[in-house]
């Protein structure tokens, strides 16, 4: 088949809601878009370990410590899973990590906010994981097979994390006055950045139309954001916490909650690298990578020695 015929076959597959697999022909733009998106997703899992990992050694009960450790472990697993999905498109994990460290691939800007209190761990679970799930559930139907399948498993674990976050938040809210205040303070700081996780408004989202046409994106940024707000309002009521938006109110006509104006200047600033933790997150990531270089080199040298000797070597794990 020549390229035109391949393009026709690809378009027909997308139109019939089929799945594109790694060996299938695909337009370069489709491949690049997916690599960018999946790598960003993988990087977010890896960078996301930092703000929560910040509290593992200080968790206030052994039960919470175990839950948090298990969660952060899941995130490392999600990262590995997603890097593998991206690798099926022809870019190695090493290359993606180099691009992350060089600031040429992104991660979710939400992880550039700090976690100064224990309640931030709960807020991340409830709001950040909640927003992530809202974004990711439609991706289980994404046109690229390996990504869609990765998302099915990841969404299951994320929804578990979200429930744990909600439960932790509920415990804090119903706890001592100090715990309640801690929970409210965390919500005050995480609510608006969570809404920004859905990306710029639809009229300012240049890549959305193409991604939608390719069956990568199923709903618009604003649709998903609205869905998230509608889910969160009753949950906040159950929690006994106040979402920090005076304009939040039910709109019977629309059948949705109206919400206030998002500060997109802040979003743009964080995206540009000027959030509270951008530099710290990348510096920590780079440091871990460079500190570990001799370890990875040792593993490679050992594997090469054993291979030369004709032995099978267990894969680094």
């Amino acid at each position: 088949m020549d390229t035109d015929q391949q393009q026709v076959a690809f378009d027909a597959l997308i139109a019939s809601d089929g799945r594109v697999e790694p060996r299938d022909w695909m337009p370069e733009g489709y491949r690049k878009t997916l690599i960018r998106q999946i790598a960003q997703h993988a990087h977010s899992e890896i960078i996301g370990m930092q703000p929560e990992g910040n509290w593992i050694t200080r968790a206030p009960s052994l039960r919470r410590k175990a839950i948090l450790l298990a969660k952060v472990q899941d995130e490392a697993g999600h990262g590995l899973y997603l890097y593998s999905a991206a690798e099926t498109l022809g870019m190695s994990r090493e290359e993606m990590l180099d691009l992350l460290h060089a600031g040429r691939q992104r991660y979710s800007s939400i992880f550039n906010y700090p976690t100064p209190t224990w309640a931030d761990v709960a807020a991340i679970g409830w709001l950040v994981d909640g927003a992530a799930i809202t974004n990711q559930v439609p991706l289980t139907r994404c046109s690229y097979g390996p990504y869609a399948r990765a998302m099915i498993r990841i969404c299951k674990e994320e929804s578990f994390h979200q429930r744990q976050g909600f439960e932790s938040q509920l415990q804090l809210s119903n706890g001592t006055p100090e715990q309640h205040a801690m929970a409210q303070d965390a919500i005050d700081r995480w609510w608006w950045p969570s809404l920004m996780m859905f990306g710029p408004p639809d009229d300012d989202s240049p890549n959305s139309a193409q991604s939608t046409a390719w069956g990568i994106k199923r709903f618009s940024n604003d649709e998903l954001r609205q869905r998230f707000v509608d889910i969160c309002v009753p949950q906040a009521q159950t929690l006994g916490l106040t979402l920090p938006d005076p304009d939040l109110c039910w709109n019977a006509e629309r059948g949705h909650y109206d919400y206030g104006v998002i500060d997109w200047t802040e979003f743009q600033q964080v995206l540009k690298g000027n959030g509270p933790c951008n530099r710290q997150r990348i510096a920590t990531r780079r440091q871990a990578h460079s500190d570990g270089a001799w370890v990875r080199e040792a593993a490679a040298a050992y594997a090469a020695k054993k291979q030369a000797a004709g032995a099978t070597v267990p894969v680094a794990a």
Partner: protein
Amino acid sequence: MTSPVSEQPGAAPANADVAAYAIRLGDDALILSHRLSEWTAHAPQIEEDLALANIALDLLGQARTLLAYGGAFSGRSEDDLAYLREERQFTNLQLTEIENGDFAVTMIRQLLFSCYQHELYRDLESSTDAQLAAIAAKAVKEVSYHVEHASTWVLRLGDGTELSHDRTQAALDAVWPYSHELFVDDELVRRMADSGVGPLPSVLRPAWLGAVQDVLTEATLVLPDDDWQPSGGRNGLHTEGFGYLLAEMQHLHRSHPGAQW
């Protein structure tokens, strides 16, 4: 998906000795778990972020059942024991508390400790104390994996590059002295051995040394001299870095007395 273990131990220990014995084993697991969890997001590769968190989680699970069981004798919960004791009241081995150092120090420490824990738990599976026997039977499977993981890394590091070899030999030289404390017999373990609850630690050393030596030799590492033999952990005497570990671990819990989390 690893789910946290139950806080309910089922039964209280028969006497104060068994309680103290369970608590010292629980302290070992708790403190080493803490050190391993410090690696999160700092490991040499993502597989190791995952593996070290996984081992930390296994150890934390063991710590919780052991502390809950030991504490039940005196009406203290796992959290009472973890968060409300002072440094001199912790009875973990110093090996479990020494700082992570580089990845070689962490892996050598893990090899020495996991091989010890493996011998110990295998013996405890036939303890006359049914609760300890049950805890050991579950934990020994986890520890087999920890031994395998640490062994694999010590081989790669010891027999990898010249740099990794030198770093790993230096790690072994630095950590080895703390291994002697694992096998010290004190009054409590003698009583435990007499009543069939647990083994004399000294009895575990030959098998431990055999296992450890096999790995170190294949890794082209040289066993250090048995000169300096620091100890005191079982009597609540710890290295200077331990107070900082407790300060970090206990601060939030202690800032909110009586709060539920």
